[in-house]
């Protein structure tokens, strides 16, 4: 395994960067916010992404996809972290697609994946139930009643939950956890959307006596926990890739500012107090690059996820991106505190991504447990 991108991957990265920088730079996010968008993303942009095959990256060729792997998806997420571009890439194209590819029945794959690849079907993972990420504590249940399951419970902080066509829902069944594919149009579902601090939207989703069949099971009955663990790991790596792009962009903008901004008649970047902090941050970001590429290629090369590697990656990326975003504001000084200037958007998005699928403390704990302490 080499920890550098190959030529083809570099080309994907370059073209993704070109597209995002020209079509959906940070000003795109600002426009969405200022125009009062209630979806928090642009469907028009998503269809352009679909034309380029982005939602098809993880989809197997037989279902109309590109089968290009996690590293390819990570590249797109990293680049959209640079531009803070809201899109269904993370939830639909990465996490939920990975779940269906891994555990879906032939029928589920045939019905959903081609539509996903075409950008016409959107998904959301509904697993959290409280203010803390605790995937091992699921209270939502699906009770067998004759031929059907009746799903009851409340899921919170469902990313993209306000526009998803289908939810992947974790629920307690007779002897364990099961995953279900639940159409958002099903009877008994109430979606309550709300904006979060980075101008994206999330939703709380209430399930009341939602009727499901065997065919809606994603993976085996009572065997959902390991699939859930896997896709949460996939999600963590995806979030880490996005955090990497975000950290790099915030850092590079800050370095440029240090070179331009003059006080006391000299660029503030000539002050050692700032140089040392910038140099330290540079090192931390270099460490993060190694983690992300290692975590992505490890997903590509094995069928299971490496929990220790995933948790250390998510923890380190969360901390480093947070440092990059907060240092960015401090080093920009007063202007960094203004809404008019873009740098504050990086901190907002960062805070969301950090808490998604477990913050640094969650992953320190998980990392330590994996290592036997």
């Amino acid at each position, binding site marked *: 395994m*080499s*920890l*550098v991108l190959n030529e083809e991957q570099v080309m994907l990265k370059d073209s993704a960067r070109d597209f995002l920088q020209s079509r959906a730079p940070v000003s795109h996010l600002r426009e969405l916010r200022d125009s009062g968008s209630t979806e928090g993303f642009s469907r028009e942009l998503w269809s352009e992404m679909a034309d380029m095959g982005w939602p098809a990256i993880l989809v197997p060729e037989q279902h109309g996809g590109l089968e290009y792997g996690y590293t390819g998806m990570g590249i797109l997420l990293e680049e959209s972290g640079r531009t803070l571009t809201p899109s269904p890439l993370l939830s639909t194209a990465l996490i939920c697609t990975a779940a269906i590819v891994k555990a879906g029945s032939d029928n589920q794959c045939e019905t959903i994946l081609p539509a996903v690849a075409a950008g016409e079907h959107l998904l959301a993972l509904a697993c959290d139930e409280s203010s803390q990420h605790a995937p091992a504590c699921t209270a939502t249940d699906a009770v067998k009643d004759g031929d059907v399951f009746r799903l009851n419970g409340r899921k919170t902080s469902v990313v993209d939950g306000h526009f998803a066509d289908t939810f992947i829902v974790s629920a307690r069944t007779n002897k364990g956890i099961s995953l279900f594919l639940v159409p958002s149009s099903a009877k008994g579902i109430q979606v309550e959307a709300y904006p979060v601090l980075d101008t994206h939207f999330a939703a709380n989703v209430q399930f009341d006596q939602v009727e499901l069949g065997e065919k809606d099971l994603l993976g085996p009955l009572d065997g959902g926990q390991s699939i859930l663990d896997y896709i949460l790991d996939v999600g963590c790596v995806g979030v880490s890739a996005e955090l990497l792009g975000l950290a790099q962009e915030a850092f590079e903008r800050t*370095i440029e500012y*240090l*070179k331009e901004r003059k006080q006391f008649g*000299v*660029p503030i*970047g*000539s*002050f*050692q107090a*700032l*140089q*040392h902090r*910038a*140099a*330290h941050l*540079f*090192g931390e970001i*270099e*460490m*993060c*690059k*190694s*983690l992300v*590429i*290692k975590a992505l290629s490890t997903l590509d090369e094995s069928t299971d996820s490496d929990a220790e590697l995933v948790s*250390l990656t998510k*923890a*380190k990326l969360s901390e480093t991106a947070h440092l990059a975003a907060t240092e960015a504001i401090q080093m920009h000084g007063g202007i960094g505190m203004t809404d008019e200037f873009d740098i504050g958007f990086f901190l907002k998005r960062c805070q969301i991504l950090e808490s998604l699928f477990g913050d640094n*403390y969650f992953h*320190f*704990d998980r*990392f*330590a*447990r994996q*290592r*036997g*302490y």
Partner: protein
Amino acid sequence: MTQSDSFRQEVRDWLEINCPESMRRPYRNETEACWGGRNCVFYSEDQKNWLERMVSKGWTVPTWPKEYGGAGLDREQAKILKEELRRINARPPLESFGISMLGPPLLKYGTEAQKQQHLPRIARGEIRWAQGYSEPNAGSDLASLQMRADDMGDHFIVNGSKVWTSYGDLADWMFCLVRTDFEAPKHKGISFVMFDMTNEGVSTRPIKLISGKSPFTETFLENTRVEKDQVIGEINDGWTIAKYLLSHEREMIAGSGISASGTLPVSQSAIKALGTENGILSNTMLRTDIARFEIDERCLELTIERARDEVKAGVSLGAAASMFKYYGTELNMRRYELLMSIGGHDALVWEGGHSRDGYMPKMWLRTKGNSIEGGTSEIQLNIVAKRILGLPG
């Protein structure tokens, strides 16, 4: 089977037969490390055999050309060899500043005669080298060094003193920075020379550290003769060589951030000393810091690996050695801070058998020098800020 796979198998088979069992265990104390040199005394037959066998394969310096005592391995093969050595926890057969510091500039800038004279003897561990860089008044501002070399035609006569010479009292030869032009700007009047430390006028004096140990000496030169054919590169262009060597030295020091093969991970030491409750380390505050440390340890390891892969792929991280030096030494210092906390009162014992003669507090104190030697952390951050980030001033 790919070419790499078959090479790996070949290495594995050879090591299985040739690496003695006792060389697959962590050092019991630092005197068990083999540094070679004229006065080398092997503490066991296994240690001697291990060195000789590795020398015969050219694997003390695997990437050096065969004619200079290496094995001519490419980077991929060298990586495999390293991995296989690590897999069986093999000790390095030879610790050597000749290999880690002098070798690279000698290969790049040395004359054919210099290479033939020095490289094979470095590879075989026959000559132990010392570094003559810092002076009492030239520390972070290394280029202001004042050791004086007067041109006598075919040789120089050198006078002055060096400080922080690692194991200066045990070394056979020294590579050294001297001033050969006293009028030129400070970076332009330095030459890089080599001499035998048994030459007349060379003396050393140990420096006792806060750890109670003396791994460094002061080194004095009084009218010492240095031949002109022992200058690497051009006269007065020694700074070029010095910087090139420093980047290798810093990479070597960075490696200290990764726990050496065979040593217990910090978390395992903590489990042994403190115990667990329900599978969780008893001291939960310390647990978080240990997790943070072990995460950073892995980060450094992967980033060194990535840097090697990037060199292979032809993209280079540039002044990365400074970043690695900074990161690696800060990490090693954190390691010993944690080990001191884990050790508690036991880690305060200075002498006596059960404390391995104060191994822990002495190592902890020694690590305080990590962020000073080879260029301080602050100097490394300056270099990153200016050369990589392009910040002004």
